[in-house]
């Protein structure tokens, strides 16, 4: 016997959640499906494999004020930003939740990033397991899986007329009280079949073949935009700059990408990664080697968004497969 909620009860619960919280869920925006703040529960889509952009923007916004600086009374006053409202992100997939688990590592590690922590503490993650996968999904090769509950507060699995419910944390329990749920003897639905990518041991192969000319060749077609980093649920490089704002100054953090030219350029002109190949290599070395070795979790969670978005088809699955073969002939 598992816990169960009917579609009708779920929608009622979501409407109630909306009353005093920000409800974020997948919705149609022209031809795209994006996580957005929802004003009507009917706007939530159910027919999607995953969204075009990741939900990381609700924990780590593309641009956010860290604090404001005001010149006052002969001195300076700094006012840190606060996170006011609670948020529920509904309809997240297991890969993206694993992405949040990865994102937690650099931000929550000492010294803790207080703004991220506020977002994180005030956000509940409600997931829906995957019964369908797209051709680009490869979560099960990257430490996740179509019904992996890691990172969720509540996880749903769609069955006839409703969902089986797993309440996984205290936060989840407070949000969705047991009294709302009934019992069901429905079997757990069959999880999606997900394509495989030979990722096992790719970190070692990358380390061994760090200087291979492969990276320069790959970088030939890279146009060094920021797209892969921005659609990725786990990329977290950011820039910090001061911007004027109506008589005050805001210190703002914004997303940035290690792919853009000038990412490592210092005042004075020296740029250690001026070469396209070194920047290309940095992305995949960070994703597949440095981060997993530093934090013990994968930095790519196999959602496939970069594969779908990259204008020149830099495909991480192809790269993982290629790296495994590098040095095989022994140079």
């Amino acid at each position, binding site marked *: 016997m598992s816990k169960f909620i009917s579609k009708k009860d779920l929608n009622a619960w979501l409407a109630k959640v909306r009353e005093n919280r920000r409800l974020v869920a997948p919705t149609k925006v022209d031809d795209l499906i994006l996580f957005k703040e929802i004003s009507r529960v009917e706007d939530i889509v159910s027919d999607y494999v995953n969204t075009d952009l990741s939900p990381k923007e609700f924990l780590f916004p593309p641009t956010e004020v*860290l*604090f404001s*600086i005001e*010149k006052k009374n002969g*001195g*300076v*006053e*700094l006012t*840190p930003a606060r996170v006011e409202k609670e948020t529920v992100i509904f309809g997240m997939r297991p890969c993206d939740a694993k992405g949040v688990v990865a994102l937690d590592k*650099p*931000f929550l*590690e000492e*010294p*803790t*990033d*207080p*703004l991220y922590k506020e977002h994180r503490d005030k956000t509940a993650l409600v997931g829906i397991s995957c019964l369908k996968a797209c051709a680009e999904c490869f979560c099960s090769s990257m430490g996740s899986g179509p019904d992996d509950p890691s990172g969720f507060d509540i996880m749903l699995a769609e069955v006839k007329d409703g969902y089986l419910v797993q309440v996984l944390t205290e936060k989840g329990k407070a949000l969705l009280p047991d009294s709302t749920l009934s019992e069901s003897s429905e079997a757990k639905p069959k999880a999606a079949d997900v394509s495989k990518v030979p990722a096992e041991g790719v970190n070692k192969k990358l*380390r061994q073949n*760090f200087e291979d000319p492969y990276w320069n060749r790959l970088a030939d077609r890279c146009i060094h935009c920021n797209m892969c980093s921005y659609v990725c649920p786990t990329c*977290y*490089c*950011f*820039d*910090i*700059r*001061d911007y*004027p704002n109506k008589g005050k*100054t805001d*210190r703002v*953090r914004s997303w*940035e990408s*290690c792919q853009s030219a000038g*990412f*490592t*350029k*210092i*005042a*004075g002109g*020296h740029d*250690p990664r001026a070469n396209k190949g*070194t920047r290309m290599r*940095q992305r995949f*070395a*960070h994703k597949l*080697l*440095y981060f997993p*070795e*530093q934090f013990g979790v994968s930095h790519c969670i196999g959602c496939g968004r970069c594969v779908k978005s990259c204008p020149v088809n830099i495909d991480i699955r192809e790269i993982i497969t290629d790296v495994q073969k590098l040095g095989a002939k022994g140079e």
Partner: protein
Amino acid sequence: MSNNKNPLLPHLATLENVIDLTPDVRLFQIELNDADFKAKFDYKPGQFIFVSAFGTGESPFGLTSVAHRKGPIEVAVRKVGTVTSSMHDLEPGASVGVRGPFGNFFPMDQFKGKNIHIIGGGIGFAPLRPVILTILDHRSDYGDLFILNGARSPSDLVFANEFDTWAAAPKTRLELTVDAKDDKWTGRVALIPAVVKELQLSPANSVAIICGPPIMIKFTLTELKKLGFADEQIVTTLEGKMKCGLGKCARCNVGDKYVCKDGPVFTFKQISGLLEQF
């Protein structure tokens, strides 16, 4: 404004004094405003702070003073970009922000009893000054001290007003060199690596600490290795583009290390173990 919980929020400080070291380098002497934080603010040679020019941004600077002398915090700022240009516009009395200290430090304890060769070029000399001051203030703890300070031209040599004090210390030798002389210069005109080669520095019981533009480090390293210095005996402090100083924004990621957390001080043995060469 308590910000010990928020590592991205600067502590308020006041610019006490500004001293011109060269046409484009100024020494900033900064005092922290909050008495409690000031009392607890301790730093070691090699560490760095972020200084905010409010309204423009913040940048990392190597600390060039030593905590044990209990004076103001000193950083040498070369006017080379947006934030440093804003800083050069500041006058004594201005409010600035300070975050830090960050990074690892020169292992002065391990240097005790050894001969120390300090080789710095241009503004790269600034983070080496705390090593010199520590040695001078605890002279008998260390062996011979050799200081080589080089710059593009005589007016670009930093800390010129302290040269006499350093040269006068026991078992201390100071050499200066410039890439191009002016009318008044009667000293050496040579690139730093050439001077290292000419002087045949001895690696016996020694540590060499080098800092300067990447190309200077590269060629000086070659000369030191030819003289027999092992990788573990050569120490440097790396510069990288940094934003948070906390190992979070991943800007200063070099191989699997962060310059702000695992550095900026590295031995060459550690650097050659890094996958990327910066």
